[in-house]
C-alpha cells in the first residue's frame, strides 16, 4: 500500500475521476433496451460505453500508482460504497427520462470544461487520458444540450418534468466546483485545475442552454450537497454497487 502522502493523494484523486465515470456508466447502462426511442437507447449506451472506457483508463492508472497489486477490476468490483469517490450527482437515480437527461447535461458540461483544463496537467498520463476523453465528451455535451432544449422548449408536460429535474438535481452540482484539501494538493503541483475556476464557464453554458429551453435557472448560490468526493454517499450508491458487484462478490475472480 502506498504510504507517502503524495502517492496516496494522487491515487484518491484518480479514484474520483474513475469512480465518477464508472458509476454514471453503470446508471446509463440500465436504460439499455428501455430507452424512450431507439435513437435515445443507442445514445445512452454509446455514452455509457465511452464512460466505461474512460473509467478503465483512470482506474488502471490509479491501480498502478497505488502499487498494491490491485487492478482496475478489483478497484471497481471489490470496494464498498465508503471507498468510492464519485460525485453525488452521478449516483442519483435514473428516475424519469428528464431526470436522466438533466443529470447528464449537468455532468457533461462539467466534464467538458474540466477535461479541457486537465489536458494541461503536469502529469503526462493524465493529460493524455483527458485529451482522449474530451473528444468523446464533446459529443456527449452536444447531445444532452440539444435534448434539454428539445424537451424544455417542448410541451407543457415535458417542460415541467425537465424543470422539476433541474430543481431536484441542482443541489448536487456544487460539489463539482468545490475544492477540498485533496484538490488543493493536486492543483498546487499542476496535476489538476482548481475546480472553482471552471464554474463561470459552466454557469454560462447552462444559462445559455436554459434560456433557449425556456427553463428557469436555480440560484447559483443555493445551498449545495457535498460528500461524494470524500466517500460519504447517498443511499443510492449501495444499491447500484450491489447490482454491479454481485457477480465478482459471489464468484470471486470469475472470468467472462
Amino acid at each position: 500500500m502506498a504510504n507517502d502522502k503524495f502517492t496516496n493523494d494522487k491515487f484518491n484523486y484518480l479514484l474520483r475521476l474513475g469512480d465518477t465515470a464508472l458509476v454514471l456508466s453503470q446508471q446509463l447502462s440500465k436504460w439499455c433496451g428501455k430507452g424512450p426511442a431507439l435513437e435515445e437507447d443507442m445514445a445512452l449506451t454509446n455514452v455509457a460505453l465511452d464512460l466505461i472506457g474512460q473509467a478503465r483508463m483512470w482506474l488502471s492508472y490509479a491501480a498502478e500508482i497505488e502499487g498494491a497489486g490491485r487492478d482496475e477490476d478489483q478497484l471497481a468490483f471489490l470496494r464498498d460504497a465508503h471507498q468510492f469517490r464519485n460525485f453525488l450527482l452521478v449516483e442519483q437515480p435514473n428516475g424519469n427520462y428528464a431526470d436522466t437527461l438533466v443529470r447528464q447535461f449537468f455532468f457533461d458540461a462539467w466534464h467538458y470544461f474540466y477535461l479541457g483544463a486537465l489536458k494541461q496537467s503536469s502529469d503526462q498520463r493524465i493529460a493524455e487520458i483527458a485529451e482522449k476523453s474530451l473528444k468523446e465528451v464533446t459529443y456527449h455535451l452536444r447531445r444532452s444540450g440539444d435534448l434539454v432544449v428539445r424537451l424544455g422548449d417542448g410541451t407543457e408536460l415535458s417542460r415541467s418534468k425537465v424543470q422539476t429535474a433541474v430543481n431536484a438535481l441542482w443541489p448536487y452540482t456544487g460539489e463539482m466546483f468545490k475544492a477540498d484539501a485533496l484538490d488543493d494538493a493536486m492543483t498546487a503541483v499542476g496535476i489538476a485545475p482548481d475546480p472553482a475556476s471552471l464554474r463561470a464557464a459552466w454557469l454560462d453554458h447552462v444559462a445559455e442552454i436554459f434560456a433557449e429551453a425556456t427553463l428557469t435557472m436555480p440560484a447559483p448560490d443555493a445551498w449545495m450537497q457535498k460528500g461524494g468526493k470524500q466517500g460519504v454517499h447517498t443511499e443510492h450508491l449501495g444499491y447500484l454497487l450491489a447490482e454491479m458487484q454481485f457477480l465478482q462478490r459471489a464468484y470471486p475472480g470469475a472470468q467472462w
Partner: protein
Amino acid sequence: MDTQAATTMIDRRNSAQVWSWLAEVPDPEIPVISVVDLGIVRDVAWHGDECVVTITPTYSGCPAMTVIADAITQALREHGIESVRLQTQLSPAWTTDWMSEDGKRKLKAYGIAPPAEQVIDISGLRSDAAAASAISRKRPALVVVCPHCGSSRTRITSQFGSTPCKALYRCDDCLEPFDYFKCH
C-alpha cells in the same frame, strides 16, 4: 509455405512489408476498410526479432479494440512473424483526419457517409469563448452528403448510431436513413 521458410524471407529492416500486410486486416465493425485505412496503426518497428506494432484506440470504450489487436497479431503470425507485440498509444488522440482517402471512398461505397467536417480542433482552444464554440448550438451545421443518392439535403436523427464512431442521418430526397462516420 511453412513458417520456417516464411521467416527467412522477412526483411526486418523493411517495415513497408508489414504495413502492406496490415493494410489487409479488416476493421471488425466495418469490414470494407482496413485497420490502416482507419488510421489506428501508428507505427511499425523491429526490436531484434520482435515486431512492435503501435495502435491507438478510436474510442476509449470501443469493444472492437481487443478484436483488432488479436486480428493484427494473427495476420502477422500467418505471414511468418513469430514474435509480435502490440502497444497502445493514447496521444496524439486518434482523429478521423488519419483516415485514408481510399478508406473514405470505400466507406461511401459501403453506404456510410465519410467524415465531412473539420476535426474538432480542441488543441488550440484555450479561451472560454473558443471552448464554448465547439458546444454552442449556434455552431455551423455540417453538410453531410447522402451516400445513396448524393443529395446534400440530409438531417441528423441522432448524434449516436450503432457504434460510437457513427451518427444517424436521414436523406430528405431519397428518404433513406444512413450512417455517418463522425469527425473525431
